């Protein structure tokens, strides 16, 4: 890592180092050496990973990354397009000027982003950068992965005998998204959120700015995606399934257990309904909590939010989202299920 930080210094000065100075270890060199070393050590690495538990860990790790990358790329392309081609005045016209009204409008707009949570983080970052009020961008960030048509259809297919689950998921998720937006508008301080900065685009072509944004976001959010995937794979490989059985008996514990499970498993919001549908020993309300919490906050998302908005933001935003999501799920469950 120390070597990785040495390289940008060259970039900050913007000039290639003077030729008479001995060159430091640059990142392309480190990368080449690292790759060569790993190719040479191929067979010991393979042997170390051949134990069933390690194999299972690696498979889940690779699966989470491969599954999320296409959606991350989609979100990154969208966010680059917003950052480069959509003028800030567009959002000023499209969203109501009063933040209190902009929040529910942005929350509803989440219904049109067809993807899972990996796509919504970079798009929300681009919206803030383009001058959208953070409260509205956050409502969009929370609602988009939960209430888009793909996710709702998947929920309907996973719960063929309980169509009310679809309505409950939609209502509970939108409720949390708007509540979080309004809360942020009331209580949030500008200093908590590190506004995503990008190099200025003046003096460069739009193409250069677009691809620069794509490169930066994939490398950045992708790195945090890897952190989240490692955490999810570890917990799936280590935590035994039998823990869940003991929790299912107590209604309060059941809700909490599935909410925590949603955070830990970090499953894509397009698939979570199928997973939780098979946990028939749990009440519908507990399963709703899983569906509301999962798309809004999980390990992978927390890592990605830290990367995009800074840790001061994520440490405040994530726990509050978690609590509100559970409350909203219980409330909606009591009324609808």
């Amino acid at each position, binding site marked *: 890592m120390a070597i990785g930080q040495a*390289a940008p210094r060259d970039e900050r000065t913007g000039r290639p180092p003077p030729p008479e100075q001995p060159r430091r270890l640059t990142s392309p060199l480190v990368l080449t050496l690292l790759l060569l070393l790993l190719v040479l050590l191929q067979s010991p690495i393979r042997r170390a990973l051949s134990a069933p538990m390690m194999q299972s860990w*690696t498979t889940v790790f690779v699966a989470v990354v491969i599954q999320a*990358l296409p959606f991350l*790329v989609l979100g990154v392309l969208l966010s680059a397009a917003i950052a480069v081609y959509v003028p800030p005045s567009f959002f000023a016209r499209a969203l109501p000027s009063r933040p209190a009204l902009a929040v529910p409008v942005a929350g509803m707009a989440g219904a049109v982003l067809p993807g899972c949570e990996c796509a919504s983080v970079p798009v929300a970052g681009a919206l803030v950068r383009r001058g959208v009020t953070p409260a509205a961008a956050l409502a969009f960030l929370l609602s988009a992965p939960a209430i888009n048509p793909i996710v709702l259809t998947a929920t309907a297919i996973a719960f063929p005998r309980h169509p009310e689950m679809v309505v409950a998921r939609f209502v509970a998720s939108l409720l949390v998204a708007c509540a979080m937006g309004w809360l942020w508008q009331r209580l949030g301080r500008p200093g908590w959120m590190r506004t995503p900065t990008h190099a200025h685009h003046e003096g460069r072509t739009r193409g250069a700015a677009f691809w*620069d944004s794509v*490169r930066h976001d994939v490398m950045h959010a992708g790195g945090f995606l890897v952190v989240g995937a490692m955490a999810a794979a570890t917990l799936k490989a280590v935590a035994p399934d039998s823990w869940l059985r003991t929790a299912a008996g107590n209604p309060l514990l059941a809700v909490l257990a599935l909410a925590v499970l949603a955070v830990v498993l970090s499953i894509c919001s397009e698939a979570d309904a199928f997973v939780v549908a098979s946990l028939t020993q749990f009440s519908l309300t507990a399963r709703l909590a899983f569906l509301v919490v999962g798309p809004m906050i999980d390990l992978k998302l927390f890592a990605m939010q830290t*990367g995009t908005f800074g840790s001061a933001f994520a440490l405040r935003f994530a726990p509050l989202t978690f609590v509100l999501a559970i409350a909203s799920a219980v409330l909606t469950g009591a009324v609808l299920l």
Partner: protein
Amino acid sequence: MNRQSQAAVLFLLGVALLHAGTTDLYLRYVKAGLQPLLLASGSVLIVAALATAWYERRRAKEMRAPKGPAHPEPGVSWLLVLPLLALMLVAPPALGSYDATRTGTALQEPLAYPSLPATDPLRLSVVDYAGRAAYDHGRTLSGRRVQITGFVALDRAGTPYLVRMALNCCAADAQPVKIGLIGDTPPVLQPDTWLTVTGTYTARESRDPVNDGRIPFLDVLTAKPVPTPRDPYDESYNN
């Protein structure tokens, strides 16, 4: 990591996605329906890598410093090398008996029991057989020889199961569906061996020790080892 190395990582990542998507490798990790998205995103990553290298070269030629303080490039990007290596060098196999024995059976009551073709032996998936046997008391299976393909898993007591992992999106959400084997089972059963088993319905049933789910049984007539199928997962819950 400077921009040249970033371009290299992006390029390799794109190549890895294209490699996984054009071979059957991706089927070990994600559902078959994700293939077009994998290929598209792989291509986008390669274009992004080429564009980065191209603009970087032009910038170097013009010797132009970027305006204002440059955004420090994040060290976390180095982690992207890990999935690259896991995919290209290790290429871990699809989930097998280790996860199957640790996770409860995900068998759900089928919505309907469509009538079966009159072929003999009748080819069925693990999920289809288990659903009909457990929830329809084998009504549509009586007097039929059925043929099922899955991998072997042994529980602590040594009872053999024929298992298929049911997958909805990616391996992180894969859950096993299990059928117990009795009758003429092979004397030595290695976990994770793929078998095509021919047998008949039996009313015997047990409960999964992990989640108390229903596990129907199959009375085995013959069992023969087969290579791992192209798609090791059962994706019927998707449709």
